[in-house]
């Protein structure tokens, strides 16, 4: 398949999965906090287009897109949301603790900045230049306010580790806007150079731009050039946690929301593909049907799967010796 078409399909798949979870969330069977990434599909897809299954990916609380774009199992993710034994964390973690080692998606965790240093340490080596594996860690703008973000950047730079720090700046930490949290006229990408880390700020809703910028950073890391910090501007369409819209809370305006809705990463890319004759209504429909089938079967699998046996409550507190 055409590479651009693959990008499109991957974004659409994330979108449709999130929409299905949102639709079914009110059934009250997925009983865990869930952070949706509707509107933010371009960043993980653009970044992952350069990643091998042996590369590592880490994420925070809003991780479904990162997991799926890296090739994480959909069945295992949906099952995890349903708290089932077949879930990717055997029902011990929920939406906030995704993991698929076969796909190289190592971990997501919801404490802000928590996985950033872990991503750094996981590509530390006592022997230099033995691998061209890279480690990507996604986080939001809020995480850059945590000390641990700066600590991780500092060490990655000292050791020139192959880490791509990917900030998805969606302008809000829960309901607190960027301007009450960070200095005016300073971008997150401005922080990297203080740690001697090459940094770029770009449009996170343009998957081709993401792909290009991420490609440069990933290639540099593979070649031993050390870490990069990428700040991608994007926007979350739904509430901080949960499947609903939240304009009624009035922490952001309808005008702002409408502006970002008009910059929908999938719409923008789709229009381009139509113009280039890479995609037409019919092929789009076929892609959609294929994804829908996969999603339905994943939900069916998850719903049919058993819950963990209560007798296993204490399992995995300690490693069995």
């Amino acid at each position, binding site marked *: 398949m055409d590479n651009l078409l693959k990008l499109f399909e991957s974004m659409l798949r994330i979108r449709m999965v999130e929409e299905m979870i949102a639709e079914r969330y009110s059934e009250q069977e997925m009983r865990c906090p869930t952070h949706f990434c509707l509107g933010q599909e371009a960043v993980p897809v653009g970044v992952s287009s350069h990643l091998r299954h042996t590369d*590592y990916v880490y994420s925070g609380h809003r991780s479904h897109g990162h997991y799926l774009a890296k090739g994480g199992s959909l069945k295992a993710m949906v099952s995890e949301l349903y708290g089932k034994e077949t*879930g*990717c*964390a*055997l*029902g*011990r*973690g929920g939406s906030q*603790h995704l*993991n698929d*080692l076969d796909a190289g998606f*190592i*971990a997501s*965790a919801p*404490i802000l900045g*928590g*996985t*950033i*240093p*872990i*991503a*750094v*340490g*996981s*590509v*530390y*080596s*006592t*022997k230099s230049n033995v691998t061209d594996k890279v480690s990507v860690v996604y986080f939001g703008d809020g995480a850059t306010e945590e*000390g*641990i973000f*700066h*600590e*991780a950047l*500092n*060490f990655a730079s*000292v050791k020139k580790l192959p880490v791509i720090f990917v900030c998805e700046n969606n302008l809000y930490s829960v309901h607190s806007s960027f301007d009450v949290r960070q200095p005016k006229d300073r971008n997150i990408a401005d922080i990297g150079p203080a740690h001697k880390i090459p940094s770029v700020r770009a449009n996170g809703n343009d998957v081709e731009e993401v792909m290009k910028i991420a490609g440069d950073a990933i290639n540099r890391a593979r070649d031993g050039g050390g870490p990069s910090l990428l700040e991608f501007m994007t926007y979350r369409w739904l509430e901080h946690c949960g499947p609903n819209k939240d304009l009624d809370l009035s922490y952001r305006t309808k005008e702002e929301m409408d502006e970002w809705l008009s910059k929908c990463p999938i719409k923008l890319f789709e229009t381009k593909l139509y113009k280039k004759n890479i995609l037409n209504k019919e092929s789009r429909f076929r892609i959609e049907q294929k994804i829908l089938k996969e999603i339905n079967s994943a939900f069916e699998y998850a719903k049919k799967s058993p819950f963990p046996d209560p007798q296993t409550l204490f*399992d*995995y*507190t*300690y*490693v069995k*010796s």
Partner: protein
Amino acid sequence: MRKIKYFQAIHEAHSQSMEADDNVIILGLGVPGPTGIFGTTKGLVDKFGEARVLDMPSSEQGMTGVALGMTIAGYRPVMIHMRVDFSTLAMDQMVNQVAKWHFMYGGKMKAPMVFRMIIGRGWGQGPQHSQSLQAWFAHIPGFKVLMPTTAYDAKGMLLSAIKDDSPVIIFEHRWLYNVDGIVPKDPYEVNLNSARVLHKGDDITIVATSYMVLEALKASEILSKHGIKPEVIDLRSIVPLDIDTIYKSVKKTGSLVVADTGTINFGISAEIISRLMEMDHSVLRNIPKRIGLPFCPSPTSPSLAEKFFPRANDIILCVCDILDLDKNILSKEGDKEQWHDVPDSSFTGPY
């Protein structure tokens, strides 16, 4: 039998574990430095190189996460905090990530890490340099928490901890570092879930942790001269807790003193006494006593510290209370040291 000091036993364990397994890494501020964490890591960098004996930025939190990340790359990191107080800067990574790492991904991830935390007292270490936070960590499911007292255990427990696939926290008391003990040269492991009966007796059980074991032995020696035979148990492992060994002893003696290095309130002694009561509420014939730090921050002045940190005398007083004995035992034997903020008169500060 060869005798070496506690700090030398730790050094030997580090060296032998790194020889045995290339994936063992040590990191911490000052680890490869000239004093090498009170001698315990001195010179290891020359033998194993800077990539395995790492100095680190003053970023306790970030570096704990980095060390956890290293386990994904196959390493077994040992992280050292020269004072347990510094680890409070790493609490998110330790408590939210490391402790739960195996559990929250359904057993797919492991965190084979060791944290060496140094605790202590005296020489005016004060509020932020002499806490004894073992109860904090014991409260978090996922950590194993050890407090080796003897040089033998310092070596064997560190070797066992490094081989363990779960995260293990080892508390080392600064006042134990210069104490001699019999330590075999070859590597050996120590069971991480058993208390040790150090001194047999029938009259009263004294359970102690870390440095307080030495004070308990001192107390026991004095009491023995007066015909009282205490049984002294070195707890060694806080998690898992070997309650059966304690129960067996208390069943025999009917009386109990627990002496811990930490704050009494909500501490290790409370857990031990509660568990005994849950097992058998009639096991104690007398009201038990708890010895530990009073409920205020560690003071600096020697005059206040003397009252703050318990010693053998405090244990003797408790035993006298419980067994209704003449407290003159204490005044006869006396405690003749002028200063109480050093382990013995040969010790000079600062440290």
